[in-house]
């Protein structure tokens, strides 16, 4: 049996973050919501996660900077951008920094769940040795 997939939700909008955590938990994920990039980085120093859902526009440290820091701290973490910011330029910048997907709010929860599973699976195959 695969262990529960740990998902970190980084978003400054309280209501959205908590609703999303609730919906992902209902789908069987171990979802942890945090309100900003600093909090996320502090948590990543202590715990490991499989996938992070990262907002782009946040007060203080924004998504671009946060993504770089998160990847430095946890190179194998799969980061999916989840933002209301429909900008092609920002999407390109997030890709350069290692985002594995770019979702726009309100992405259907089912699609997010599929992308999380896909990212975990891909990481597993690529990480396994002969």
């Amino acid at each position, binding site marked *: 049996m*695969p262990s529960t997939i740990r998902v970190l939700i980084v978003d400054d*909008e309280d*209501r*959205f973050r908590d*609703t*999303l955590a609730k*919906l992902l938990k209902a789908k069987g994920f171990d979802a942890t919501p945090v309100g900003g990039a600093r909090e996320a980085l502090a948590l990543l120093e202590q715990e*490991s996660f*499989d996938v992070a859902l990262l907002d782009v526009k946040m007060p203080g440290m924004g998504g671009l900077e946060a993504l770089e820091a998160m990847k430095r701290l946890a190179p*194998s973490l799969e980061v999916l951008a989840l933002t*209301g910011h*429909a*900008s*092609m330029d920002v*999407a*390109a910048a*997030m*890709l350069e920094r290692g985002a*594995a*997907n*770019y*979702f*726009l*709010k*309100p*992405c*259907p*929860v*089912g*699609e997010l*769940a*599929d992308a999380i*599973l*896909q990212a975990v*699976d*891909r990481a597993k*195959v*690529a*990480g*396994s*040795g*002969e």
Partner: protein
Amino acid sequence: MPDAPLHKIIAASIKQLLPAHKRKQAADEADRATSFRARYQAFLQLLESNTELLGIISELETRHAGGELVGMAHLKQLSTRAMFHALRMIASFEALCGKAQPELRNTIDSIRDRLQQVLVQPDPTADVPLILPLDQLHRELVDIAGGKAANLGELRSRLGLPTPDGFAVTVAGFHHFIQENGLADVIRLCISVVQPGDPATYAEASRSIQDAILEAPMPPALEAAMLEAFDACAARSGLAPDALRLAVRSSALGEDGELSHAGQYLSELHVPRQELCPAWKRVAASLYSPQALGYLLQHGLSLDGLAMCTACVRMVEAKASGVMYTRHPWGLGRRAMYVNAVWGLGAFAVEGRVEPDVYIMDVDSGQLLQRRIGSKDAMLTACKDGLTEQQTPAAWRGLPCLDDEALQALRRAALALEAHYGQPQDVEWAVAHSSDSSGALYFLQSRPLALGKHSTADFAGLTDEALPVLLEGGDTACPGLAAGPVFLSLSPDDADTLPEGAVLVARHSSPAYTVVFPRVAGVITEHGSVTGHMASVSREFGIPTLVGVPGAMQGLSMGQEITLDAWSRRIHAGLHPAALEAQRQARGSCPIVPADAVLLSPPRAALQTLRRELVPLTLTDPKSPDFTPEHCRTVHDIMRYLHEKSYGEMFVISDHVSKGKGQEGFALRLEGATGLDLHIIDLGGGLVESPHRRRAVPVEDVASRPFKALLRGLILDPKTQGPRPVHLKGFFAVLGEQMVGEHHLQKERFGDRSYAIISDKYLNFSSRVGYHYGVLDCYCGQTVNKNYITFSFKGGAADEARRTRRARGIALILERLGFVVETVSDRVSGRFQKYDAAKIEEVLAEMGRLLQYTRQADMLMTGEASVQAMADCFFTGKCYFEPSP
């Protein structure tokens, strides 16, 4: 998760354990494995993004073809995601092949620039005030104030019809509330869990959204503007602010337009000043009622641009109220208007709560064609403390609500309204008590009348007496024939369990029943009116509906098979074939299509640009010298190019590795009677581990779950199947096709390599056999929701007509296997998903057989009949298509 990838740990361990000369060799192998897996990950990313982009393209095409409403915000989202995944495909390919792709990046940059030009447009509601007085409204402001408020303004300012004073809270007011409270994303998130066709999920999403709206505070600017408008209305009426009462009525964007949204939204009556804002929030929240969500999804409407405007108008102290259709909803062979009337306020007339008076009048001559006095046993009235439902005084019940003078006034208004709008109208009216100003007639709303599918008097009821009559009577809300089992419903709450194709039988009509309309064959209610909200939606959906049938709940039993003839207002025992046939035809008919105005709107134009940059595929032939990055024009071209080349890169990698010092190749030949030159690339767990180096593997060594299943059908058994027969006629036709002129696949050869890229749960099978190209991609694991088979097949050696027939034959087979299928010319693609692993395996075995079955079948597709014959023959279990002589 471990900190270092497993392969590094293993490589390190090997170095520790082995003697020096073997350590070097093992390290080389480990490095090659690392390099291979990095490239494989890039390949997987490329495939993932390819799938995402195909989804985006498919959505663009569906929205275009269906004429769906689409908002600018959503188009921006699609472009952003398209750009991300196009760039990710390029980046993945660069990682895969180790070379930069400047031409592709330039092409994508140009596409991005062109998209940005059309998508960056000013917000049309930027300068709209939060509130507008009714006097300033007219129908051109429908996008700002919603249909109901804009039309009320039109009646008032341009038609000079008497309407109550008031104001509208505009789309800007609604958006201000949503934005100030950060609700937009919450709403969309909740909607994302809604499953079309599952009313329980509508209810759950609706509750979460409505709670969020009702709990959110009023932004001070909006509250101040609304109260100021309230006070101004009181002053114009010569009333103190605390004496004025308003009706706060929904005026949603899109409501009262081509799609009526009849009764989906809330109206609050008799609202005093202190209740104005809470009432407004309740009306705003009703934008997301379960039935409204269901209605939107059933019509495939976008949730973009959804907004609740409201019309806040002075209450009319109504003596009598009702609904007028300026034209009988399905015609009577003449211009007749249809009027319903009840005592008191009009809510009971539209909700179907009491049996109203019915008046049918010839609009041209003014002759009363029919007058039926309803029982009107209850009435809704306004008093000092609010609304009260009371028994209608006995003396009033038998009295008509409307005298001839009032009917003639309605008739004059009907003529004026039809002349002004150029189409029949559905009008709400009220006659004020004499204490209220002049005792006059007021108009409360006017909207296009949903005429339904039977707008003429083309009677199509049952003409035979084959089935016994169980019940008779009632009013036809929507004519037509329906047959099915009875579903007795005590209230809309129990309708969740209504089975597909049932005839809904209920005590009262209610808009809440419309949630299950897509599953309903017909509707019968004991109470309700032809002008009610549910009846309007019945006509939109074309669902045969009879309302006001006395004794229906007692006279019919759960599950009983009946035929409803809403033309003749009769209910028969048993299922009449004519009704079943009518139902079958209705299911195949087109849904409602939006008005031309929608097709030409700015988002529509942006959609066209997006399609132009994303969708067309000009790079079709991989063997052509033009199949290069420089010739990629669209995102689809780039996808096609990279997808094709990525397979090539994977093959190159396998060759490269197999040529390495270790001689351990990744591409291994399969030893099995498949008739294919089939090579396997194992990405981990796809093959049984072997202590020996090998170039070929027997079928027994395949461990990949999906590949094993596919091989069950793909491997030919010479004992039972014998050799494939040769059809010379078809074969010569193919040769002829190749000899005359240009051939689409001239450079392709028989007998190309086929590849299976496998892991324990994954299979990507690509087969180039003869002149056709088939790809099957599959994930088959424990997670049901992740499991899928996608299959795409194209080409062939025969002429286009035969190739197209084969594609259609394959499409039929795929459909019967449970695939969702698309066929364009000689290309067929299908998707089968969200089944458990056992079912996926079962279908894979059939797909294996299909891959063999389709070989050269195009030559045999000599006529239209061969399409069906090909499909039928497959399901007899044969391994090749053998047309009957």
